[in-house]
């Protein structure tokens, strides 16, 4: 059994010590108000005791935490009072991630996370191990898994057989860890385009913090920025239009600040992004301040998806993401960027090499579907007008009826939504595309399909339309919604439903037959 890095012992002890010391502090000050017998003075005695107990617990936790990489499992024993012993079968591991914050980089330690399918959380987290130990673990898990695959080839997906026939030789051969073959390297220009074109809200979450820390200074700055444009010189003494102008100008500057923060965040996240392949795994690393590196077994990949927003579509760039059933780093459940941003053609070429999928021509739903969206967005516009009317009853708003312009937007929005829908039934994959603001094209291998549904709401039934919902185990879809082909003719929807099922069955049979055949040869 290996121990974690000694520094993590110190960190845990300190952490628990502070927690243990603060509990008596709160408890005594609370109980002091309730019971006469409790006196505030006890804190001076109880808090140090709590601190010592906490430190002792933290130290004990460190000494009682052990991990070991066995031949086919990863074992962890932990717990001071109640012991927990876990064995994670290596072939069930989805991905292994290493992350390193700035302080951790300076101290030469890293956090290792081992993900399996199922559950909403990381299966095993080692905080912290030395950074060379982290890379060793990642590499060894990869090597041992590859060895197991070589022994039991039926657990492999056809695509890995195709792509890694050559790799297998060296993954099981003399060289235990061949240097990763570089597949993609994010260039400076691509990183800049990515930062500027992706509108990330992550930066905006910092704005309230800025207000809490330096609220007055921010307000003063906003006043001085709005003044030349006709804003008030002093917030206490201004007319209504001046306040209005101040509000508008402040919102615009706020949006600009949020955008810039978001761009900076994206820049720091994807700085020096590299994707490579070694053996049967994809490996990536990225990050400016906090470094991430991860390895994803190719046969654990559930779906690929191409994501692009309107700006990126206009300059013909796109990003490619990999979805697994595991839980990803920094909360991005099971979804890793394979190509953060590159020319669309390059992304498609990459996808083609990874899956053997040639970019097919997409079919759009019938124009009848567009009519539905016009109705839907018109209802939305009606709600906007009704809200504006309601507000105008309470406060006087000039030209509230101008909100009726929202109706003009409905057909445009409907058309854009319809235009960006599409699907294609390829040989090994079902392709589903949807979304205007963030258009996603999912490539779902048939053998990854879990369930297929045809859904028809009452409105769809009236028009003879139906939607096909294709569910996979990729955990990304929890948040993003399951890939759905919207509003097809019912006959088409049913045909795709049947086709998907048939191809899943065919894929299963061929994989099963192949596995049995090979296992006979091997045994």
């Amino acid at each position, binding site marked *: 059994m290996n121990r974690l890095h000694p520094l993590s012992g110190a960190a845990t002890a300190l952490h628990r010590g502070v927690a243990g010391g603060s509990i008596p502090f709160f408890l005594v000050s609370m109980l002091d108000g309730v019971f006469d017998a409790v006196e505030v003075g006890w804190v001076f005695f109880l808090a140090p005791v709590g601190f010592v107990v906490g430190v002792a617990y933290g130290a004990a936790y460190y000494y009682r935490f052990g991990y070991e990489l066995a031949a086919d499992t990863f074992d962890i024993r932990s717990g001071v009072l109640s012991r927990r012993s876990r064995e994670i079968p290596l072939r069930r591991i*989805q991905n292994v991630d290493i992350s390193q914050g700035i302080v951790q980089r300076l101290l030469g330690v890293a956090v290792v996370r081992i993900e399996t*399918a*199922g559950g909403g959380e990381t299966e095993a987290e080692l905080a912290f191990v030395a950074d060379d130990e982290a890379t060793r673990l990642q590499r060894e898990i990869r090597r041992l898994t590859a060895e197991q695959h070589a022994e039991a080839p*039926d*657990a492999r997906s056809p695509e890995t057989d195709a792509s890694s026939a050559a790799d297998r030789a060296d993954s099981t051969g003399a060289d235990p860890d061949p240097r990763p073959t570089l597949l993609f390297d994010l260039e400076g220009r691509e990183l800049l385009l990515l930062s500027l074109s992706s509108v990330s809200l992550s930066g905006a979450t910092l704005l309230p913090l800025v207000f809490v820390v330096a609220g007055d200074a921010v307000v003063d700055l906003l006043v001085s920025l709005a003044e030349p444009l006709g804003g008030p010189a002093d917030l206490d003494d201004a007319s209504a239009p001046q306040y209005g102008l101040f509000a508008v100008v402040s919102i615009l500057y706020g949006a600009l600040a949020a955008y810039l923060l978001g761009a900076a965040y994206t820049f720091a996240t994807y700085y020096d992004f590299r994707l490579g392949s070694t053996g049967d795994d994809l490996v990536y690393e990225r990050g400016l301040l906090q470094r991430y590196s991860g390895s994803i077994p190719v*046969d*654990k990949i*559930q779906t690929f998806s191409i994501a692009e927003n309107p700006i990126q579509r206009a300059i013909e760039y796109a990003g490619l993401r990999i979805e697994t*059933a595991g839980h990803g780093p920094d909360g991005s459940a099971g979804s890793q960027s394979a190509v953060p941003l590159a020319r669309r053609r390059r992304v498609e070429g990459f996808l083609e090499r990874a899956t053997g999928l040639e970019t097919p021509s997409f079919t759009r739903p019938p124009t009848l579907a567009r009519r539905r969206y016009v109705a839907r967005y018109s209802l939305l516009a009606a709600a906007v007008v009704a809200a504006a009317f309601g507000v105008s009853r309470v406060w006087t708003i000039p030209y509230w009826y101008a909100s009726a312009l929202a109706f003009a937007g409905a057909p445009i929005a409907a058309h854009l939504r319809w235009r960006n829908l599409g699907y294609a039934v390829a040989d090994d994959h079902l392709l589903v595309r949807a979304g205007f603001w963030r258009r996603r094209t999912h490539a779902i291998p048939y053998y990854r*399909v*879990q*369930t*297929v*549904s*045809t*859904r*028809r*709401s*009452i409105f769809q*039934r009236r028009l003879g339309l139906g939607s096909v*919902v294709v*569910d*996979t*185990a*990729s*955990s*990304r*879809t*929890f948040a993003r919604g*399951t890939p759905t082909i919207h509003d097809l003719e019912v006959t088409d929807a*049913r045909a795709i*439903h049947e086709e998907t*099922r048939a191809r*899943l*069955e065919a894929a*299963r049979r061929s*994989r*099963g037959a192949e*596995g049995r055949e090979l296992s006979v040869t091997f045994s």
Partner: protein
Amino acid sequence: MEPLHPRIRIVWVVRAVLVAAALAVAVAAAQRWLVDSLPSAAAVGVGLLLALVGVAHALLLFTNWGFELQDDALYLERGVVTFVETSVPFVRVQHVDTQFGPIERALGLSSVVVYTAGSRNADVRIPGLTPDRARSLQNTLRELAVESEAEDAV
């Protein structure tokens, strides 16, 4: 297509009536303490209307429900407002439960719940089966799932 046991209608109708009654009581309370101008018949009216809609929904749901064991998948049809046809390939079945709630038990009914590794509709529930049918369905599904052996679902 195999229908559900007709007694499931009683479960759904009772449930709908209970919900309608609860909402009628809420309307009555609102009328008593918040809005005096509401006519006193409002609570009764709301209750009756909801009960009517609920009962109609329950009856339609029963006629629309159906399931079938096909060659390679469990196939289900259900829904009133949105009609859903779902295929659950046997190879994707992770495990199968039988369950029953208090009302179901009183009426001698139980449900079969089929779990997959999928993210949505990860559990598919077939309500309104006699305990015998539920058990036999559970066994059949288990056998079919083992037969089609998922070598690596996720």
